[in-house]
């Protein structure tokens, strides 16, 4: 193969929203069938409507997406691995939430309630909070991605 030793580059392909994974899977099948030099495909959840393809040349990616439904176009230019590194090591969702912070719950049965953070569990990505409006302070444990920080740590 001509591209045996060529260096990888990252190309961005625009897709229909919420079809990123299906496009990635279909591109994999095409790459295998047509023996195209696509080395990996990345579909991070943070990047809606786009997928990242590792290949040595844009023309290969262009060829691969031709017959794939929901794959729209290749974005001009290319990225380096350093630019996409942060997608490979996602931060825990509780990052930035500290004990004593005031948060608002954004989903679940307590949606819209304000609460104070009592404990942060980084390993399980959970936080334990006490609701402001509760008559008796009962600690509840919720997922770190279902809250919005209103006020950072408060000294009292």
């Amino acid at each position: 193969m001509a591209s045996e030793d060529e260096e990888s580059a990252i190309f961005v392909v625009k897709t229909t929203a919420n079809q990123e994974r299906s496009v990635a899977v279909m591109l994999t099948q095409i790459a295998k069938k047509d023996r195209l030099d696509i080395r990996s495909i990345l579909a991070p959840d943070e990047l809606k409507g786009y997928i990242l393809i590792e290949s040595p040349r844009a023309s290969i990616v262009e060829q691969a997406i031709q017959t794939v439904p929901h794959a729209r176009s290749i974005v001009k230019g290319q990225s380096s691995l350093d630019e996409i590194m942060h997608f490979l090591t996602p931060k825990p969702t509780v990052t930035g939430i500290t004990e004593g912070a005031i948060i608002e719950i954004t989903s679940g049965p307590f949606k819209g309630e304000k609460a104070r953070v009592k404990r942060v569990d980084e390993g399980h990505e959970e936080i334990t909070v006490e609701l402001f409006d509760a008559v008796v302070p009962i600690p509840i444990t919720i997922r770190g991605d279902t809250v919005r920080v209103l006020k950072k740590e408060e000294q009292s």
Partner: protein
Amino acid sequence: MAEMVCRECHRILKGQTCPVCGSGNLSSDWSGMVIIIDPKRSEIAKKIGIETPDRYALKVR
């Protein structure tokens, strides 16, 4: 059926046990997908230490 992810090796799979590491420690709560096609020449595969072509989740809870 929702796709599951092995908590040990992060592979995305369909059954109840991971066919590669044999673990039953699976999770349906995962996000981000990376498909490694050519691990020998893929820089991404080298960075995340993957040696076999497969579908992997970036994050598993």
